[in-house]
């Protein structure tokens, strides 16, 4: 299929580069014209064109609440399993963030120092933070920094101001919450407040791409 035939938007390449890396395009992202890319994708005509264009590459654009990501069609279970393992680390992080007094919500601007300060003052949070594996730093602030950097790398956060080390919580953060809320622990009935109307299909969409 010729791209010209489809009259694809000129940002197609840019969109593909982001999504194919397993990242999200959020409406409230500002870096690299992300919000513009979101607008392009959000245009129904563009969306259809891009969907059919990317389907050739066996990619499917998934639409979340104010964000987009790629999922792969007919992904082998081994890869899904691997993704699940990758996702596991987010559970503790989201748990920690959800336990903060000032809960981290979409659009919020957070600073690792503030979160670390709160963790430092709260034993429960300290324990939760200590429980989070994978981080080399033992210092609370550094741990939180690493978490923020990881979330930034995975396009859930965006480093908005380097000087003040301010991160913005992007719309894609909602994806993490949705997935976590959709998890059902065996032997326990799903909590009604955590039941979403259309939970992402964990088998396929546990992580973009």
């Amino acid at each position: 299929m010729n791209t010209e035939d489809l009259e694809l938007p000129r940002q197609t390449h840019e969109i593909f580069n982001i999504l194919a890396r397993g990242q999200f395009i959020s409406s409230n992202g500002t870096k690299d014209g992300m919000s513009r890319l979101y607008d392009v994708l959000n245009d129904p005509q563009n969306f259809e064109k891009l969907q059919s264009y990317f389907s050739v590459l066996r990619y499917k654009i998934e639409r979340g609440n104010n964000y987009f990501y790629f999922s792969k069609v007919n992904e082998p279970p081994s890869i899904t399993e691997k993704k699940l393992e990758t996702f596991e680390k987010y559970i503790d992080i989201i748990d920690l963030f959800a336990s903060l007094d000032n809960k981290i919500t979409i659009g919020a601007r957070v600073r690792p120092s503030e979160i670390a300060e709160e963790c430092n003052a709260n034993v429960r949070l300290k324990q939760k933070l200590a429980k989070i594996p994978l981080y080399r730093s033992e210092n609370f602030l550094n741990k939180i920094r690493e978490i923020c950097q990881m979330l930034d790398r995975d396009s859930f956060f965006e480093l908005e101001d380097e000087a003040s080390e301010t991160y913005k919580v992007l719309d894609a953060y909602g994806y993490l919450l949705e997935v976590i809320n959709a998890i059902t622990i065996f032997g326990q009935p799903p909590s009604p407040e955590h039941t979403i109307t259309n939970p992402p299909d964990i088998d396929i969409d546990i992580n973009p791409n």
Partner: protein
Amino acid sequence: MNNGYRILNRIVEINIANVKYADIELNGNTCFVGANNYGKTSLQRAILFFYSANSRALGISSSQKPFEEHYFRYDNSYIIYEVATETTPFFVMVYRHNKLVFRFVDSEYRPEFFFNENNEALKFREVLVNLDKQGIFYSNQIDTFERYRNILYGTETDPKLNKFFLLRGNEKYQNIPKSITNVFLSSKNSIDSRFIKDFIASAISNESDVIVLENIERQLRQFSEKYQDIETFLKKETQQLIELAEQKYDQVQLLRTAQLENAEKLGSTLRYADTQHKILFTAIQEKDQKIQQLKDEFEALKYSLEEKQKDLREQIGYYDGMLRTAQRKLDLYKEKNIDEILEKYQEKQQLESRLQVLQKEYDTLTADVQNIEVQYQSLLNNIRNEIQAVTNKINAEITEIVNHYNELILLQKEEQSKRESELKQQLQSAIASIDNDINEKQIELGQLKSEEKIASSIQPYDKEIKQLELEITELKTKIYTGKSEMAIQQSKVEALQKEWQNIEKQLQQKFEHLTQTIQQQIEQLKKEINQIDEKLNIQENAFYGFLEKNIPNWHLSFGKILNEDILFKNDLNPQLINPNDNTIFGVQIDLDKLQIVSKSIEQYQTEKIEKLNKIKELENLFLQEQQNIQNEKLLNADKYGKQIAEIKEDIKVTQYAIELAEKKERKLLIELEEWKTKAAKETDASLQSIREKIAMIEEELSILRKRKKITETEFETQIQNAIARAQQQIQHLKQQQQKEIEQLEVQRKNTIKELKEKEESLIAEKQNIFQNKGVDNKRIQEIQKQISQLQEQLNELQQYQSLISDYLKDKRDLFDNIPIYKQKKEELVTENKNIIQELEEENKKYNLQRLEISKQKKELEDALYQFNQGILFFENNFKETPVYKHYSSIIENAEPKPSNYNITDLCTQLLKNESYFNEEYTHFQRYINEFAGKFRIDNHFGFVINHNASFQEYEKFAQNLRNFINENRIDVSITETTALATMIIDSIAIKVKELSGQKEKIYHIVELLAADFKKAEFEESKLIEYIKIRLEESDNKIYKLLKKIQEFRDEHGIVFNEGLFNTNSATPKKSISLQIIRLLDQLRSAIKEQEQQEIRLQDLFELKFNIKEGLNETGWTHRIDSIGSTGTDILVKAIIYITLLNVFIKESSVKTNKKFKVHCIIDEVGQISAHYLKELLRFAKSRDIVMINGLPNKSGLESHYKYTYQFKKEDDGTVRIFPSIVTEVEV
């Protein structure tokens, strides 16, 4: 001196830098020979200053001392430039008087002007004195470089000064000094088309002819950021978030206010409860005492009344008994026909009198036969006595029987009466008992009914209901007032919007009209300029040019009768036959009488400059007006927007107040309904029990009445039966009595009949005797008969004697008192009734009072209970919660106030609300974060919220957002951003146009350069075969974009007013707006990428060279690194410079009959060969250009120059410049 041309003839330096005195002739190619740092370049700069008069464009680096300070160190430092003219030379003296100043002196340079006898340089005032002494004209001090240049380049309008010119420049004369400067400054650079471009550009443009990209980039960044902010704001999702956040804000506010109110209420109620506890307890006790007191009083009153009632009843019973006895007796007497008896008894006396009369008569009649009479009378008396006796006896017996039976009957009757009385008594007692019960029940019923009446008349929660109704009425009034206010405000908004639109429309129309007018004027002026240009272009070959060249001052003579059409005709083939002929075709006229109609070239130039200035003024006016209108629009937006926003805010506030009022009304209506239901329920409950009691008592009453009736019936039956039985017995007795009496009557009749027969026989015997004796027997018999009848009657009356006496006694004692008894009884009954009524009333009153006090007591008890319960609940279930901690200051500091609120309810409500509030606040926070997160951190709306922000901060954010929306600040922002975009685009368009306007000049210059190169006679030396030059389109990305924007602006005009943020992509202007926004975006990216500071004229085109030197051809290229040897390079470079200079001089000067020469200052030409130098000097000479070059040392090259000066440093550090003795070989 008359050269036939004008030239800078000489430069004299007096105390300049480290030169004490130097007099250097420049009227020919000049060469300065000296080692480095000997002052060659300084001298060349001083020469350059003559042309440029710009101390900052002399190539002095910023680390060096400025020109003024380095050159003019003393009060008597001068540079003197002597200019040779067609006639006598003049000179310009430059000295420092605070700043550099110039004076034109109408004389050749003479040292005595500046030195005294001791060869000491004079101060400028002394110089002027010297000049004055010699009557030499000198100009006033020229303070500005600009004025100096104007004079030097012949554009000065002052007639006193307009002779001090080097050449007649046109409006572009600035290019000449610039070109000379550029040649001097860039002579060390390699040959690069960019340099040539720079040279051309800088020669024909000035410092302001640049587009500073930094400014544009800043403006674009501002615009882009603002655009992005506005776009983000206008997005559907953002608007939805605003709506959600607003809703939640209202909820949160409402809840917060409710919580604060509740906390305040709770605090007040708690404080009040504390103060009221004792008071309530005492009040309850008081109420108890009052009830007891009331009861005691009532009981006492009741007792006294009942006692009274008892007396009355007894009395009534007495009178009742008397009346009944009297009635009974009356009935008895009636039975005995007492009336008839009494009537008869009244005749008794009359009968006794008649009897006495008859007795006397009888005695008289029987007086003669008295013996016989006595005898017979005694016999008769005996018989009669016997009869009497029998009669008496039987009567007695009858009487006895009658008495006996009467007695029996009486007994019977008494018994019956007794029985009846007993029964009646029983009945009475039973009835009394029942009546008593009934009375009691009736009293009770009365009480209950009055209770019912009270209960139904007392509406529970009346105060609350009335309060609520009052509040609802107030709210309704408020809603109504609010709605009408809102309607008024709405109409105000509409009126303001209309007014605003009208003003905008007017402004737009005004602007369009102005644009049109200005455009027309500009068009007109351009047309006129074109006409002037056309004239100037063709003048050389036209009749005008011929006159200029051949007839001096033709304007004053021949020109007066020629019109412009003739002057600028180029096909007239004029020929100068007799220049001294002052006639016109042989005709001579006095031309002094005619006005000068023709214009000089200078006048045309001036006119053109004026028109260009006028265009500039008009453009400035247009920009100014545009800015003014924009400002006015902004002011209007500010004014109306603010007003509308304020009113809208008011509307919103009113609407909110109405909503709140409606909400409150609904709530109050529900509350009212609840209170009413509660009241109705309570009334029903209290009435129900009363009614139940009433029904029960009524039933009991009915039973009692029934029982009474039954009892009465039963007793009546018994009485009737008793009476019947008694009557039967009496009848029986009476029958027996009758029978016995009849038997006795028969006996008496028979006895009396026998006795009567005896008597009659005696009477007959006697009568016979009397008859015999002559006595009137008949009469005697008659009297006797009458006596007998009378006696019978009297006897009969005698038997009623006791009955009558009894009757009379009874009458006297009883019957006559019946009315009194009745009256007394009635009085007593009335009195009794009154007492009953009084009792009832007292009872009612007592009950009412008791009920009222009980109710008050109950209320107090309830309140106390509620307070206690509330305090308990507060202590146990509320005080430890975070909600209490949250509102503790309000609760603890509240003023005690009486209220109807229940502490438990308030605590529960606070707890419930707090959890609801937290839920809502979380949502509110989330929406605000999400909303703020949509914007850049430094967005121009200031929509930023800290993650750790407090409630107040979130509240402030929401309030600001609300104000933002209410005041419609987005419109203001859109207007500003649109204005910014318009301004950027306009500014780009104007700047690009201005710059592009110069492009034609470049084309023209390049064409001239190309032509000049072509004309160059390289054939002779064969060194350079040709130098070709051509222009190509600029490949500067930024310029291309700028150009596109300018073209876009020209094509579409200002397109944003309606379309920039129009969300409807179908709007035609939207797509145009999107195009321009994309262009602006691309421009911004390009500026960022290219890191270019400014766009200059040279960025508008590409210049390429093709040079062939010998066998070497460079091809079309930007840069020629090396054409051949260094000497060749210098030559080519110098040739190009000279060509450039020549072209610029030609272009920037007016062609007149006055010739002139200028200098081309190229410092280092040391490596050029003599052959090349010769070639170069020749090349320059053919273009009226005199070369000034620097050589490091003497090498023979100097021999090719007319003047050669050597530089020598003296021991004292001063430099001496002296002419070298060489001969100009050949030029």
